[in-house]
């Protein structure tokens, strides 16, 4: 899906009465930004952009577009899953700099693969009224490969990648 701006449609509800930008994710590559502007944040030359937040205070601008008040939403492209993004509204200076007047909340795009957290195990306890509780447990579980999201037909999306090195330190089913 390419970038696409959408017209505003009335739908039973009035606008909020305050400036807002909202960023929602369709998938790891495509987000949707919509905006509503009020008087104090309605610059004559309004622009919006999508930025990816980098380590520290840095941002990488991915897309910039002119805000037409007849329009109200736009599909945008992300360049990294699991990264943090923000939509911003502002003005563009004569030197091309972007002066931010309003921004969306920071939002993490979905991922295509697992995070890099270390495997850890818990022992769960069921309660009739309190749901689940758990306590940490020392547990080492060897598997002969990895389960990863695959590509192609749906049944392959739980592809077992058998040529990986054996996971775990040993082959005992250790449940201390």
């Amino acid at each position, binding site marked *: 899906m390419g970038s696409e701006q*959408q017209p*505003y449609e009335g*739908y*039973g*509800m009035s606008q*909020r009465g305050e400036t807002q930008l*909202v960023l*929602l*994710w*369709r*998938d*790891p590559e495509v987000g*949707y930004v*919509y905006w509503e502007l009020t008087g104090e944040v309605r610059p004559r030359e309004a622009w919006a952009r999508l930025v990816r937040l980098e380590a520290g205070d840095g941002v990488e601008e991915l897309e910039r577009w002119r805000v037409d008040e007849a329009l*109200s*939403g736009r*599909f945008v492209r992300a360049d990294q899953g699991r990264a943090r993004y923000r939509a911003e509204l502002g003005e563009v200076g004569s030197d091309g700099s972007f002066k931010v007047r309003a921004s969306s*909340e920071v*939002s*993490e795009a*979905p*991922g295509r693969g*697992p*995070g*890099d957290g270390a*495997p*850890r*195990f*818990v*022992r*769960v*306890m*069921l*309660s*009739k*009224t*309190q*749901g*689940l*509780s*758990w306590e940490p*447990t020392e547990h080492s*579980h*060897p*598997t*002969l490969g*990895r*389960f*990863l*999201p695959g590509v192609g037909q749906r*049944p*392959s*999306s*739980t592809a*077992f990648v*058998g040529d990986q090195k054996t996971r*775990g330190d040993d*082959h005992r*089913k250790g*449940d201390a």
Partner: protein
Amino acid sequence: MKTFLSVVLHAHLPFIRHPEHAYHLEEMWFYEAMHETYLPLLQALDRLEADGIEGRVTLSLSAPLIAMMADGLLRERCVAQLERMRDLARADRAHGERPERARALADYYEARFEALRAYYLDELDGDVLSRFKHHAEGGRLELMTCVGTHPILPFLESDAGRRAQIRAGIAEFEQHLGFRPRGIWIAECAFAPGIDRLLADEGIAFACLEDVGILTADAAPVYGTYSPLVSPAGVAFFGRDQLASAQVWSASEGYPGDYDYREFYRDLGYDLPMEVVSPYIHPDGIRHHTGLKYHRITGDVDLGDKDFYQPEVAARRAREHASHFVHARLGQGRDLFEKLGERPAHLTCSYDAELFGHWWFEGPLFLEAVLREASHHQELHLVSPLDYLAEEPVQQQATPGISTWGEASYFGVWLDPSNAWIYRHLRNAEARVLRLVEKAEEGELGSVPNLGRALRLMGQQLLLAQASDWAFIMKTGTTVAYAKERQAGHLAYVERLGEMIASGAIDVELLEELEARYPIFGALDVAWWREEAPSARSASG
């Protein structure tokens, strides 16, 4: 070597009840679901009980479906529809020259609808929920709730709004089933980190996700989807097994596409001459599905070239497929045992309940046969996710990733050019409710008569507007006008009630009209929308 199998059925319809019309096309969705899925499913469970067959199936009941099943008007109309279809079978048999096979099918449907009518009216007294509860108490069902009106939780404005939807689902379930559910079906399996905390806060122990939710967790799932992940908040998330699931739901590769099974798209509502069918369809002469379908899939042929359906042949195929399914799961479990480090696999097979019966007519027979076949194999344990956790309490801890069970496993169905524009309105409505609830709590709205009533109805209308069904219909392009009319209508009520509440001029007639028209969420508490201590992580997608 054990293999655990959880068959999880998700039962949901949007709340559709139109007392203003004697005959309403969209209400037919409920009647079809009743006579094709829920009544046959209960009959199958009854037979399993009578024969002492062990094994448990998990079923989520959404709040709108529960409210519709409990509603007196819809019960009456459901009986009338069963009788109408029985009478249509009689009328078909009586009219003109019909092939012998068609007459036999008319006999079949007449007997079927009469039996369903007698079962629903005489045996159940119109109360299917009590029979579901009976089977839950008897160990054949694990009943779960669903999130409120089935919203895409990550797209809601706030955690308070998400909490309100979760509590609405639990409250409706508890009000009608009489106990607190321990599992929840997250609408469309639409998950984002943070939702687990909200579920845990309500005492929810488990939920189901698409496999991608497990496979994109914040730590690599060492058992893939063959064990749940327990989030740090304390909810076990079970990922759908694609292989086992696709064998059932896939129209091309799965069992339902077998040529002997009943053809869904050919129906007497469209086949019969208008003079015969008109008393049994919409009074304006609008043809629609009746549930009387005389043909089998046959093959890759045009609808007009389909052969006649043979119920006994199809039933035999369902039993054969059930046997195949059970043996395939046994083989899968054996294969996985070694790969998982000599640990029994848990296979989560989750489906829309309406697949069984409505879309795949023989589905309830298949399910019954799966339980019967599995009872002959000690290796295979048909359990609920909770049963499995009791057997295997040591699980990996991780937080699942953002995902849904929709196309491509993300949000493309519900965030598309056809429907993305609705979210501003839904979120603005939610913000309006949050603001007025806060004002009411702080005493800023004074002591206006009927204020609490109006606030509750405003909350109810917001919940109804947030149902994911409306966005789904817009994307699929089916009954788009109805979906827009419903959603815009609920939002307009939120707007109007908000204006009344803010001005202190509450129109009691409107309140009475809404209370009569929407008998759902009787236990609604506006405090559900009160902002509480923020969760550790935002749940917004």
